[in-house]
């Protein structure tokens, strides 16, 4: 039986980050991973020869640059490249192009609505203001609202100071914003439906909420608060696919002396008395350690790999009721050429960014209606990007791979479980949607991987295939994430911690959950803190 200081369960990007910081502090760390590859949902997989799919997460903007720099991820092979704007496709022939260039962006918006072209300035300023506040909390441990410990009080004072900096009026707006729907929020600014739909679409990605559901405005913010080199809202691609992030983190971890064990699923966490002391692997091996860190989601951690009798009742109940609804699908496609889209000029820039098959506010809401009834939509919202137009490493020259993120797709269907036939029919619905805007699209397809929440759960272990490891609604955010009273990464079983997206600040390839958990663990183990402070462009 091997003896470690820490076992991290799950080699997703947060688990690797957590382990890297523990190893950096001199701890003897092992990351155990059930799959034969690492990365969790930040992976690059060659499922068709010559094509490297980022088959789960596909773009990156939330990665904390302080961690990127501190862990020398660039030296370990990571480079994040921002990509240009997205084309949003309306239900009909309307197209909305987005540009980084201020003048081009203004003229394009004005083409759709002079009113909205003007209003966009206020929208951007307001979103930037909201983002600046939230971003400051990402690499910090949420304070406990009921604790009177000095550190929690200091943290609340810090937050109050940041909030105060928003100005009196904005404090009200901020509170209002958190509980609104994306649609209500956008109605304050815009009149044009396609502009609204394009701006609303980040509000539904990965969530079982619709554009009209309260709470979706925060999801919108969660998706636009990231930045690439200070450009808030910009998205980047990792050269070599999202797996490049995980492999850079793994390299950093190994350089600090950490180990990674693949093909090692966890059967259960061993709890001796009230303390976690190790894990039993699915091959029967036992590994013991001073602490155990779960990078699995809260539901999986507490309902599947810990015996119920080892837990306080309330935790099992909270974990069972943890809101982690699957709502997204993913279709990865190898293409023999760059697709052409109708009513899109053929120029060297515009066709090479992202495509939002947005439709309209109503189309998105109807797609959500299908999810509620346990069906996939025939007219889904699809957010696509063609990374090979930017990244020479992911497809052969002249050929392309297209990532298609699909909202909505239910974890189980009204007529029963997913079957391979139903999965393919879902993939077909996505192709049909793209075909409406690119008539020759089907002819370009060389290979397709269709992933419903079922496949995502089976392969990656995300409960219901929820990409955030739990809904990003206010009841499950900040000090309520994953559960009220457990917002500081320490779990009810002594020596057990969580470090995945089920903890603050939630989903997205930010590495912040893993780093925040490491900071708390090192504090408990009386080790020197190795986790850097975040840095901001607005300070």
């Amino acid at each position: 039986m091997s003896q470690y200081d820490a076992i991290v369960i799950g080699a997703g990007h947060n688990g690797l980050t957590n382990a890297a910081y523990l190893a950096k502090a001199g701890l003897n760390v092992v990351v155990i991973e059930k799959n034969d590859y690492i990365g969790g949902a930040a992976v690059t997989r060659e499922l068709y020869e010559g094509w490297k799919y980022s088959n789960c997460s596909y773009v990156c903007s939330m990665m904390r640059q302080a961690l990127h720099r501190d862990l020398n991820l660039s030296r370990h092979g990571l480079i994040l490249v921002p990509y240009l704007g997205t084309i949003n496709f309306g239900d009909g022939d309307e197209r909305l192009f987005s540009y980084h260039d201020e003048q081009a962006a203004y003229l394009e918006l004005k083409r759709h609505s002079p009113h909205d072209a003007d209003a966009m300035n206020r929208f951007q300023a307001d979103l930037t203001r909201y983002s600046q506040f939230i971003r400051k909390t990402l690499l910090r441990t949420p304070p406990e609202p009921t604790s009177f410990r000095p550190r929690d009080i200091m943290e609340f004072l810090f937050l109050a100071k940041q909030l105060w900096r928003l100005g009196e009026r904005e404090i009200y707006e901020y509170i209002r914003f958190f509980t609104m729907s994306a649609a209500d929020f956008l109605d304050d600014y815009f009149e044009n439906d396609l502009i609204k739909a394009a701006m609303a679409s980040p509000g539904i990605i990965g969530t079982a909420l619709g554009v009209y559901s309260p709470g979706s405005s925060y999801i919108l913010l969660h998706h636009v608060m990231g930045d690439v080199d200070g450009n808030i809202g910009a998205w980047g691609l990792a050269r070599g696919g999202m797996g490049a992030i995980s492999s850079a983190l793994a390299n950093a971890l190994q350089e600090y002396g950490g180990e990674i064990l693949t093909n090692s699923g966890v059967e259960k966490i061993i709890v001796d008395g009230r303390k976690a002391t190790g894990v039993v692997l699915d091959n029967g091996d036992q590994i013991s350690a001073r602490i155990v860190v779960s990078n699995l989601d809260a539901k999986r951690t507490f309902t599947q790999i810990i015996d119920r009798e080892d837990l306080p009742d309330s935790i099992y109940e909270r974990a069972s009721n943890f809101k982690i609804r699957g709502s997204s699908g993913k279709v990865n496609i190898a293409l023999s050429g760059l697709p052409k889209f109708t009513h899109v000029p053929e120029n060297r820039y515009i066709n090479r960014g992202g495509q939002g098959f947005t439709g309209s506010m109503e189309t998105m809401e109807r797609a959500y209606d299908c999810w509620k009834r346990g069906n996939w939509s025939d007219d889904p919202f699809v957010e696509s990007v063609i990374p090979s137009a930017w990244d020479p490493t992911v497809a052969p020259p002249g050929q392309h791979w297209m990532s298609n993120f699909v909202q909505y797709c239910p974890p189980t269907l009204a007529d029963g479980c997913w079957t391979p036939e139903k999965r393919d029919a879902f993939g077909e619905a996505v192709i049909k949607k793209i075909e409406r805007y690119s008539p020759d699209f089907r002819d370009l397809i060389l290979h397709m991987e269709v992933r419903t929440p079922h496949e995502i759960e089976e392969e990656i272990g995300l409960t219901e295939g929820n990409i955030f490891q739990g809904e990003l609604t206010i009841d499950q955010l900040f000090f309520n994430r994953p559960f009220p009273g457990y917002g500081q990464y320490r779990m009810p079983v002594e020596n057990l911690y969580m470090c995945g997206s089920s903890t603050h600040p939630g989903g997205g390839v930010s590495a912040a959950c893993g780093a925040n958990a490491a900071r708390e663990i090192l504090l408990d183990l009386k080790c020197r803190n190795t986790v850097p402070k975040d840095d901001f462009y607005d300070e």
Partner: protein
Amino acid sequence: MITIDPYAGERLKLSPFYIREKELNIRDAWSAWNGYKFADYYYDAEYEYFCIRNQCGTYDICPMQKYAIQGPDAAAMLNRMVTRDVDKIGTNRVGYAVWCTDEGRIIDDGTIFKLADDRFMLTCGSPCTAWLRKSAFGFNNLDITDVTDEIAALSLQGPTSCAVLKKMGLTGIETAKPFDVMHFPFHDDTLMVSRTGFTGDLGYELWINSGRALTMWDELYDAGADYGIQPYGETATDMARLEAGFIMPYMDFNEALKTVHFEHDQTPFELGLGWLVDFEKPHFSGRRALLKEQQTGPKWRLVKLDIEGNWPAIEAIMYNDEECSEEIGYVTSAMWSPAVKSNIALAMIKSEFIDGELWAEIYRAKELRQYRRMARCSKSTKPFWTHTRARSTPPADY
């Protein structure tokens, strides 16, 4: 065969005067304003600046936003929107105005042309469509049209500008007083001329339907040939306006609706525009906040500075003494003034320091090497540069 430009949607729009401007923009020095291609300068910025002060120059203000606001409710709507009393602007007169958020922060500044009791034109630097719509809530007998693309506008500024317009055939233009508007028949159309500008000098602005823009340009340039007429761009404008003490958006003030930090925008009192705020008239946006500010006094003040030495105080931080004991503000615009041979600047200073010593920390590169200097500043209450010709009616011919 017609080739379609695949970048058409991304390219800047061209002003109705562009064909003529392109010929004269020897340096290909272009930038952009509100989606229009727009000249920084044409030949030599300093030469163009001296045309404004010595002969005359034209400045293309087509990209400036123009809104026709018409109907029985037009005056009431504008009165609720802007801080000054629109009813006090006479017919065929122009008034400078600012409009604010409920917090009293300036959204933009611009000019209101009163063309009839129920007919106005509002001009401003940035698009204002969304705010105008909000400002019109509750006023139903009203029509607001963006006429930016329909009306071509050219500013003609400088001591010979009146003579040029007379030669062009605008009989009686010399009777126009500052801020007057006159209308002249022009090729079955009407040419509107206002005695306005952004240079502090004698000058006019010409407003014509876009279709007649080139005809107007040609006749103006024919008339001006012997009067030194010359197009000028953004650089010369910025020099002339600073000498005149006029404020520029994105330099001396931020538009409140686009500002991320609530203290990074300004109020009329902070900018020295208290004279534009009329508490006697009925309610207007920002009234409550401005009334409070009038009692407590503004936190910051924009001041005109005369700075010792000749290093322009560009982006300088302001201190209360030579030792930099306390940071008290920052320079917003600065230049060496060719007309008055002084080192001038506008700076935002915290009110409590306004009467003390003012020092600017100035950096300047000489052949790539950076130098630093502390320069004492004195406040100036008048525009840095004025000339009687800017106000006299009729103006002299040069």
